[in-house]
């Protein structure tokens, strides 16, 4: 191991800790106290109130060496992936998901039919990272020396650095699969608590080192890419080890949490105390609380719980100028522009979010999925609009277009009994033949209700009544649940696509209600046209869904993918198409981003989005807070 001694030591702890958490998992309940396996005790911990849940390490998902459990050149866990087995059937490996270990019979035909892909044409990704392709780190010796003296763990091992040099944009993953490595951070540090971050930022300022905060690494805006023009030593500040819930305040229903905790851990730990945040972005398995704050994240169940800006009560951020935070934890205040809004969406350009007080709610008593089929997308949108008008949106309501409905259908796992398949056939017959829905036009809305049982049932009826008035037919819980599953496995599917010459991406926008249909139609058509113009040989998949409803508009999510056989520079074509699609969105009254953020991918449009004065405001904040551009990821501005 090429890592320094501190890293070496911690990795041994790491393995031990991992083993312990596995055992704890078997025992169903985590051991009460396992302070013995704490890798490095945070010096500041003594000053924290002593809360049981505050113990580090137990059952936490993300190890320091992420590559131990996660793919270095693809999405998610190493053990979970789609593949075509020897019989040519699609299968999802691992044990983590509902779909794990299942055969998905329809996927092969769907892929062949939609993309013209073929099992015969496969491209293998580079299996292991060729560390010699990684440029040696440029280290700022003085900084490293002082950092060492603080005892904060760090590493300049190639694997650690490469892992933190990218998010999950197509071009980033594509390059990794080809074994192409660009500029990567020169070093990774793992602070354990707020005070560690303060020390790191102080040292970085002192030695003029560039810091790039790293949370869950799920960015899709090129936000984690190291600016190639950066000549200083780049240090990736990985917050993943700052993952404790420091306290829970049941009287005010808030929890004070370190920013590095990932969504699934936060929910699970809160659940143990009977609470939840209800914040569930699609990336919640891996994305972190600090990342949510820094990008203005949005969760699937925002209709009940709110988006991140509604959930945050207090934020602590370390900047080159010092620590910024409010003096109280209140629901609202009138003290000039809300300083939280400088932090929310700052995308790591101003500092590192270290601790957040977030609202919590008692866990819902009852959850129910549902779905409604509409004869066409127009009627589906009309239904969502009416639901929003009446302000009776369930925890989540999403409308998939016809292509996505078919896509979801292709992901149906093998049914175990003849009876179920018979029932499916009957349902299909009823909808297409009896009700006269055109299978090439119908679309489906998926629903998730949450709350106490009685209210859920009442609520459900209200929504189904609206749907029925607008031509919808209830289509069962199963369809609904599968719709939500799709969002968690879609990223895994992209990896499968890339094995067979198919590349794709998703992107989102928010748009006023009266333009929803227009933007969906035009952006999808633009994608198809651009692909054709750019010489793509096969018709692309171009699909969308309305994923969130608001009083004044909706959030729309697009997927596009195409078979790139026959193209010399598929990534470039892909980028051109995505660029054109974004132009189309903006021309049709959509926003630059609803929740993915701007990063570097979309910053060319920032000025026209927020006006010159707006840009000036943002810039002057940056200039005051970080005059030497220590937080030099160059996102946003």
């Amino acid at each position, binding site marked *: 191991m090429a890592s320094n001694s501190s890293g070496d030591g911690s990795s041994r702890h790491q393995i031990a800790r991992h083993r312990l958490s596995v055992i704890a998992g078997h025992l169903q309940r985590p051991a009460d106290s396992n302070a013995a396996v704490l890798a490095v005790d945070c010096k500041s911990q003594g000053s924290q109130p002593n809360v049981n849940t505050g113990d580090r390490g137990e059952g936490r998902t993300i190890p320091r060496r992420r590559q131990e459990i996660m793919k270095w050149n693809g999405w998610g866990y190493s053990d979970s992936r789609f593949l075509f087995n020897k019989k040519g059937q699609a299968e999802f490996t691992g044990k983590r998901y509902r779909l794990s270990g299942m055969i998905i019979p329809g996927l092969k035909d769907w892929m062949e039919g939609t993309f013209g892909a073929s099992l015969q044409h496969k491209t293998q990704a580079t299996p292991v990272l060729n560390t010699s392709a990684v440029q040696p780190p440029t280290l700022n010796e003085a900084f490293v020396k002082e950092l060492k003296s603080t005892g904060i763990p760090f590493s300049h091992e190639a694997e650690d650095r490469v892992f933190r040099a990218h998010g999950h944009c197509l071009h980033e993953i594509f390059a990794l699969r080809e074994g192409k490595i660009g500029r990567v951070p020169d070093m990774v540090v793992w602070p354990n608590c707020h005070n560690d971050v303060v020390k790191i930022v102080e040292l970085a300022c002192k030695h003029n080192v560039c810091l790039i905060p790293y949370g869950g690494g799920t960015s899709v805006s090129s936000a984690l890419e190291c600016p190639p023009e950066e000549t200083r030593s780049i240090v990736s500040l990985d917050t993943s080890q700052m993952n404790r819930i420091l306290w829970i305040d049941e009287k005010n229903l808030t929890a004070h949490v370190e920013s590095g905790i990932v969504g699934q851990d936060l929910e699970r730990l809160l659940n143990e105390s009977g609470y939840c945040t209800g914040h569930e972005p699609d990336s919640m398995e891996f994305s972190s609380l600090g990342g949510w704050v820094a990008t203005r994240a949005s969760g699937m169940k925002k209709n009940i719980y709110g988006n991140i800006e509604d959930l945050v009560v207090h934020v602590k951020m370390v900047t080159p100028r010092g620590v910024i935070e409010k003096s109280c934890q209140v629901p609202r205040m009138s003290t000039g522009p809300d300083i939280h809004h400088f932090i929310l969406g700052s995308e790591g350009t101003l500092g590192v979010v270290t601790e957040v007080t977030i609202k919590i709610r008692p866990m819902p008593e009852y959850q129910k999925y549902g779905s409604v089929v509409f004869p066409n997308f127009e009627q589906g949108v009309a239904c969502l609009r009416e639901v929003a008008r009446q302000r009776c949106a369930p925890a989540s309501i999403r409308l998939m277009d016809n292509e996505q409905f078919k896509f979801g259908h292709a992901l149906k796992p093998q049914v175990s009994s003849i009876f179920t398949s018979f029932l499916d056939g009957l349902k299909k017959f009823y909808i297409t033949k009896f009700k006269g829905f055109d299978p090439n036009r119908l679309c489906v809305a998926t629903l998730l209700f949450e709350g106490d049982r009685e209210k859920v049932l009442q609520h459900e009826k209200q929504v189904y009544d609206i749907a029925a008035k607008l031509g919808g037919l209830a289509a069962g819980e199963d369809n609904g649940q599968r719709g939500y599953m799709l969002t968690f496995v879609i990223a895994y599917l992209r990896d499968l696509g890339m094995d067979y010459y198919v590349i794709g991406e998703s992107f989102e926008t928010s748009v006023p209600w*009266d*333009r929803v249909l*227009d933007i969906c139609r035009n952006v999808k058509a633009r994608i198809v046209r651009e692909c054709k113009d750019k010489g793509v040989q096969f018709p692309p998949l171009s699909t969308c869904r309305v994923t969130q409803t608001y009083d004044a508009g909706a959030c729309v999510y697009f997927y596009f993918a195409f078979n790139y056989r026959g193209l010399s520079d598929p990534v470039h074509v892909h980028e051109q198409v995505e660029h054109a699609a974004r132009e189309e969105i903006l*021309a*049709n*009254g959509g926003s630059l981003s609803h929740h993915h953020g701007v990063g570097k991918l979309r910053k060319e449009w920032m000025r026209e989005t927020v006006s010159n004065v707006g840009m000036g405001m943002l810039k002057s904040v940056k200039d005051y807070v970080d005059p030497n551009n220590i937080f030099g990821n160059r996102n946003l501005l």
Partner: protein
Amino acid sequence: MASKTVFSHRDPMLKKRDDFEDILEERRNTSDLRYALRCYTPALYKGLTPCKASELKTMVLRSDQLLYVINQVSKETDTAAEEIQAEAEAILEEMAHRLQLSTIRFFAFTLSKIFKTLFRSICVNEEGIQRLQQAIQEHPVVLLPSHRSYMDFLLMSYILYTYDLALPVIAAGMDFMGMKIVGEMLRMSGAFFIRRSFGGDKLYWAVFSEYVKIMLKNGFAPVEFFLEGTRSRTAKSLTPKLGLLNIVMDPFLKGEVFDVSLVPVSISYERILEEALYARELLGVPKPKESTSGLFKARKILSEDYGSIHVYFGQPVSARGLAEGRVKRSQFNLMPRHIPRKPTEELQDFVNDSAYRLVRAQEENMVLKPWVLLASLLLQNQAAGNKRGMPLEDLTEQAVWLRDLSRQFGAFLHWPDHIPPSKVVSSSLSLHRSLVRISEGRVQLTLEQGGRAEPGLPKAAMTPEDELLSQAVIVLSCVSYRNQALHVFIRPVLLASAVHAASVNRKQEIFNAFSFLRNMFSNEFILRPGAEVQDFEEACYLLVKSGALRFNQQEVLVTERGHRTLAFLTRILDPFVQGYQMVCRFLCEEATEGLTEKRFVPAVRKFIIKHLLTGGLKYVEVLSSDLQKNALAALLRLGAVQKLRGGAEQGTLKVNTVMVNSLEDTLGGKLPTQKPLAARL
């Protein structure tokens, strides 16, 4: 050079011609009845929301835009919204079409009969039909035919029916509706009627624009209208009207459809049915009001031979493509789209520019017959004072020369190369025997027996003025054929005239003279605003290509054989120059206080007749009211004449004598080569 691309697509014209198919051929061989009753299943727009014509009305009346305007008008006029609503319904009732297949079938049958008697052939480019069929399925389609005859829109629907294409709905002028039964028949064949002017009537505009937009957006049918607004009486393309183009662009610009395909269609008649009618109208005999009985009187035309018709369906032009990089569509983001808004200047320029591009596309695909060239030559000969006409051999020789020149300029000329030129010439002349005759081997216009128009009057009883006018009918008829070729020559013509007039041969100075002329005549010819440099480059390119000009660094030199070309080209512009000068002189010398726009044409006509009779002016075609109106429009545009608004003096013309005088002088040969002079205008 960017301008090069303008020419490249014109060259393969032989290929273009080969692709024409005569649709009358099949009609002559198979049953018209069976044809009229055959199964008609056109391919439709993929995004079509099927609905009946009556449902369209409901959609219009319930549209956000109309409801908004109804409310607004109701508040402004302090009238109950229901009343305004009823008014809107009435407007819609008056306007709406009632497209019925049975009427189309009726027309298919009768028109087959009529077309077969009138025309030798109706040639349609098949490739264009295929492109159109494709376009109809992909995006809403707007058909933009040229407008030279009443026949145009029946012909269009007839062709689309023949090729099993979606039948269009057609914007027609309200005057058609006056024709009792025919008006209703047209309505049932897809025409919808719009008032000629409704300036300021918000409600009318809202109903009208919403009606068109809803048909377009839903893909109900291709929308057809005439960019030129009205039939061109001169066979020159008219400067485009922007109202309807604005309306059909709107759904694209506001993102309500992904794209709109604009399909220019060029309809060229070998002989125009309304030939003499137009000439007389231009001379001040008012246009007969459209009436059914009038149509029957016109049936004597059925016994004549009108040659062939060529219909060229052009390449569909994407509204999206036109707007790319020119229009910021996000400008509509900050206001609800149903609230009517005055278009920004940027947008107006864009639509205007697009309209010119589309008209030029129409022009370029107009099929020219040899007669068009003969008419040009004969008119020049006549103006030169050769009363006895032109020897047939000379005419043939010159026609061949002109054929080659016009081909070099990219004309879409339909000259049968496998037939000896003399045969081509004589057969052309015989088709137009009402305008020319051959006597003693010489070809001349049928001027002296000009009584053709009023055969009842004995020759001796005619006043000199009457005689002049009856000659003018023949001349203007010929002019209308010559005009068909003007678009081919106009840019070289302007350059040739600039070279001719400029005292020096420096390129920059010639350009200045060129831009003066171009600016002066931009109401007369289709010259895209702002494309001055491009037009100049194109003219230079064409004249160099044809060997008439040479460029020696910054100098322009006329070659040995270029003199003939340049002389011919200059003579094309001559009647226009003299006509404009006449108008200027009239305004300076005779315009009385309180001359109104209405009385301008009769007054200037009298003035011109006087000068023609005294021999001070040789071009009879200057009598064309079209030319006179264009001249006035140019002077108004340049600010040499002002139109007073409001009060009792409404429409009175106020002449800036100094400026008009100087313009006249400049046209008379003192073309400005200095920039400041041109800039002053």
